[in-house]
């Protein structure tokens, strides 16, 4: 069943025309965040894993996609990689997305959250709590604290 749904997804989003040029991996903003990015976590890695029939649970790249659609725009073969990743995420038992601690709306993917806490927490002994809020909740709490 998985293989057939993968086949449907791959043909629907044009994954079979991937030529492994790696332009998507070069454009991906999350390339900065992982050491071994290019083969496993990158958009190219995800497309290749789909073609090989790897299970969605073994695709770490799904937890770092920001859905910025840069890969889909640059792809010379016309693959809608971001759309493919969005469909693959639906196959996961639990979406790899952090949710706002107040209103529960989905925010950043987990890897992006880790990268963010590394970038903004540097130098602080206790962890900052505001990155756990979605933008509108954050604005509301900030306004409440300061008006």
């Amino acid at each position, binding site marked *: 069943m998985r293989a057939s749904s993968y086949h449907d997804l791959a043909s629907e989003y044009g994954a079979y025309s991937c030529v492994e040029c790696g332009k998507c991996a070069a454009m991906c*903003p999350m390339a900065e965040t992982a050491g071994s990015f290019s083969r496993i976590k990158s958009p190219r890695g995800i497309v290749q894993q789909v073609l090989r029939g790897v299970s969605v649970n073994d695709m770490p790249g799904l937890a770092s996609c920001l859905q910025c659609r840069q890969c889909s725009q640059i792809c010379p073969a016309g693959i809608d990689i971001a759309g493919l990743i969005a469909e693959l995420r639906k196959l996961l038992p639990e979406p790899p997305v952090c949710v706002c601690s107040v209103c529960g709306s989905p925010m950043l993917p987990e890897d992006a959250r880790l990268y963010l*806490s590394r970038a903004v927490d540097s130098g602080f002994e206790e*962890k900052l*709590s*505001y990155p756990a809020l979605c933008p509108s909740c954050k*604005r509301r709490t900030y306004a409440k604290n300061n*008006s």
Partner: protein
Amino acid sequence: MANKFGKLRDIFPPEKASLRSARSKPGVVFDPSKCTGCGLCESVCASGGSNSEGMRAPRVHIMRGDVPGTSFAILCQHCLDPQCLKACPNGAISKDRDGVVRMNKKLCVNCGMCIAACPEAAPFRDSQGQVNKCDLCGGSPACVAACPNGALTYAQGSRKLWIAPLRWLCQLINFLLLVIFLVGSVCSLNAITFDLACPFGVLQNVFSTKAIVLATVVSALLLMLFSFIFGRAFCGWICPFGFILDLVDKIIPHQLFRMPRFLRNRVNKYGVAIGGLAAAGAAGTQAFCTVCPIGTVCRSYGMNTVMAGAETAIVPALAALNLGEKRSWCRYFCPVGATLGLAAKIGLVRIEIGAPRCKKFSCMRCADACPMGIIPKEQLVQGLSPSINMAECISCLRCVSACPHHAASIRFIWQKKKTKPGKIPSDCQSSKGDAS
């Protein structure tokens, strides 16, 4: 941990903010008490700002409150140390030479990391998914000109520059008086009509002789009364050893080493105080006074008592601690400061930071300037007003002098509080769950 800032940032390096821009930070200051929530700033910004770019999504949003005075404008503060710049994975955000934080739309991929990194989520995502932020309209913000109530003002910031020279002069005069001219030292000083004595010295005296002499207690209470009225201003403005520490910090402002964690505990000084009193009781003399840096600087470095033996080594040794952290001795060890801090804790003066004009996370100059390190950056960076422990504050007024927006101030205990510290919900890492 080193952040892996990307290849793109190496190709397009952001301009280093010059010293001048670091001093005069441009920005829009918002006064919540004047805002009526009319939204003119939003509509003017949406119509293109001062550059007349044509219709666009506004870069300023008003969070409207039910009660007048509770509306709030969310807009970019152009931080000194922008979180969005650290978080942007593509290096699209830069702090330019003029102090304005700009977003390079050629590099931006609208991923939204800057929105997540900003404590007030000031970059906005419009209906097309594009992320935009304020660029101050090139120096004349249209929102400021449009605001009918004067709630938004364009400010470069001005500082109270007269405080620092006054403090240095006061410290120098007191250093010359106590160390060079008056040989008796601060420990017990016979001024013309009344006696002044170090309160911790008098406490030791009581413990060692097991007798309370009323005259010395009264002379010690004078300094406690001074601390009750002015806070620990003795430490910041008078103490000769504090003057030496400030000089060391002025000459070598770098952190050369880091003290072990168990030493960096502010409770230590109360431990030193209790230990000193116990030693005085056991030995029958004022044991701590022989190694007290304030006492030794007065006794050994004066004109009449030239370099009294081993005592001269104490001051340089303890001053060297300053290379680990500013005013390490005063922060963690000084029992005299601990005694004065007890009076300052219940005293009349409070330092208050975070009046409505405070720009919190975007500035944090007060936290950088504070020699005692008692202004918590963790609170400021989350947009909260910091709480300041007056037992640790040496009333040097560096924060008041460093604040360009006059948000740090002295408050007497009978005056009304301007700030009310809030709390942002915590547990940021446990937010994983289903998004339904």
